[in-house]
């Protein structure tokens, strides 16, 4: 392995860029596109690239909020159930004849309230986030079935399909993913609140002593998680002509995986939302690639699991390199 340390010593910004998880993910994504594209050029055709980005655009949006939560040292495993509930609420409101704009907006507000209440349990009632959100997972999932009985929501209004719209030839969910990632990344980098999230995750006690209102910040981060889950829920609900009112299997694990593979440390304190978005797209690209290169469908999940493990190991290796270099 070339001596990156020597190459980069004394150039902290260059070092940070080259050794960032974002760079690694981008390289992995490009390498995947190149290799699989050589095997089957249809993989890199415009429409497949668009499908890949589209497939996980809502995952990426939800992963932005999840990354913020994980950066503060917490986690939310109820987000998949929440998205299922929001999709059902969104469809029901639209079919009640509400203006479409409201049908999109109200579920987002609801998500902020639900996630905010979870944040209150975590911050003020001192229930560990994994436990509280495990409880929320049950409540939301069971509640959804009690409410809808699992009946699909069909006959949605014509203009309901927000996720089906294209602006400048690019589907709306991809715009949402790009814009929200850019905004969130900038905000996390350059706002006091964003930096406070990192501080809380890095050292909660120190953050408190440094005068950061940690409890309020934790509630805020969960509300933001609700905001992004809400937007993801709307994108999820509006991409097909029917809404399946059950919780998508393992959705929360996919979202958490995107955040974690994106380089957000589960121990809190590090990671960026650009990484999680790249990871969400990479996961979709892997899923698509496995079909394109004819991996036996029986071995698909094992391959997928291995690739996640390899990415995570590589990330750790990179971090150690980074520590040594500085």
């Amino acid at each position, binding site marked *: 392995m070339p001596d990156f340390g020597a190459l980069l010593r004394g150039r902290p910004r260059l070092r940070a860029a080259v050794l960032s998880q974002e760079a690694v993910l981008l390289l992995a994504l490009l390498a995947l596109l190149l290799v699989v594209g050589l095997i089957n050029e249809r993989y890199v055709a415009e429409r497949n690239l668009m499908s890949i980005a589209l497939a996980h655009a809502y995952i990426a949006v939800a992963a932005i909020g999840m990354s913020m939560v994980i950066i503060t040292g917490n986690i939310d495993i109820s987000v998949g159930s929440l998205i299922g509930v929001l999709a059902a609420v969104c469809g029901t409101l639209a079919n009640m004849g509400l203006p479409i704009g409201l049908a999109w907006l109200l579920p987002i507000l609801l998500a902020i309230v639900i996630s905010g209440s979870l944040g209150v349990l975590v911050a003020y009632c001192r229930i560990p986030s994994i436990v509280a959100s495990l409880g929320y997972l049950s*409540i939301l999932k069971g509640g959804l079935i009690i409410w809808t009985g699992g009946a699909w929501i069909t006959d949605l209004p014509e203009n309901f399909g927000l996720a089906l719209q294209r602006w400048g030839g690019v589907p709306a969910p991809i715009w949402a993913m790009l814009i929200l990632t850019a905004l969130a990344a900038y905000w996390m980098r350059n706002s006091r609140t964003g930096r406070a999230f990192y501080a809380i995750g890095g050292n909660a006690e120190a953050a408190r002593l440094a005068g950061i209102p940690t409890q309020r910040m934790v509630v805020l981060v969960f509300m933001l998680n609700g905001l992004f889950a809400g937007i993801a829920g709307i994108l999820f609900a509006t991409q097909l002509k029917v809404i399946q009112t059950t919780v998508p299997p393992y959705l929360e694990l996919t979202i958490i995986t995107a955040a974690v593979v994106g380089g957000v440390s589960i121990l809190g304190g590090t990671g960026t939302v650009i990484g999680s978005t790249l990871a969400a797209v990479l996961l979709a690209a892997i899923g698509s690639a496995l079909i394109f290169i004819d991996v036996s469908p029986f071995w698909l999940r*094992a391959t997928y699991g291995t690739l996640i493990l390899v990415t995570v190991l590589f990330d750790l290796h990179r971090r150690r390199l980074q520590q040594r270099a500085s």
Partner: protein
Amino acid sequence: MKLISGSHVHEKILALMLIIALTVLSMLTDKFMTVANILNQGRLIAEIGLVALPMTLIIVTGGIDLAVGSVLGLCAIVLGLAWKSLGLPLGAAMAVAVAVGALAGCFNGLLITRMRVPPLITTLATLALFRGVAEGLSQARSVRGYPEWFFFLGQGEIAGIPVQVIILVAMTVLFWFLLAKTTLGRSLYAIGSNEVAARYSGIAVDRVKVLAYGLSGLMAGLAAVIFVSRVSTTRSDMGTGLELDVIAAVVLGGTSIFGGRGTIVGTILGFLLIGLLKNGLALTGVKGDATIVVIGLVLILAILASNLVERLRDG
């Protein structure tokens, strides 16, 4: 008030909740509080209990194992294939399955200790990996046609008590002894409350952790054998979602997700509370989806109550 003085506050609260739940449910239906029903429930949920025991150890060290359901699925497939495809005697195949479980657990443990991958991430990845290997090995085929004697483990009884309930009780005593009475147990608590300090005080932290994850895999393997024996067939999707049931039982039992605190007694109380609530509500005609909501509420309220009591006590 006696409840809030002394130790094991959470266990006392749980025991109280359990008594209240039992009383209310047995008033609502006379089908609930019968020996036959309780033993039968034990048969149905024993696998969750078996896996919850080592999960307690792991969470006490401040770790977590999300892969248990997948390990169970993998072991079930290995059992079926070792017997049917490799032609091993069924007894040997059972041993192989449990051994594979232990190996899978150690694999997690090694990734966590040697590669220093955080447990949540390690087991999130192996959750997909082990399930995937199970699917790949099985080629989606079920293995069926086990001999009658094999069903003793999962469907038989000794003196009227389901076999797996006896196994669960024995394992509970074993794990209780391990955690509460041995140096290994003390090491687990020490690692959970301050890993660095534990290392400095001469505890072989890595070895203890690998052992805990290995035990988790081993028990998932044992649970797999019992599960296959109970349902007479092998499928690669066995144990899907088991991890959440198990973790719910353990954290409801008062084991701190941050490590350093928790008991086997608490875990068993949490496990019983969830299992009997589900059963009792079903017997009183509450539907499955409403039961899930109740379990979620109980989980949050129990932790809330014990936090509150502790805060009262600490002034």
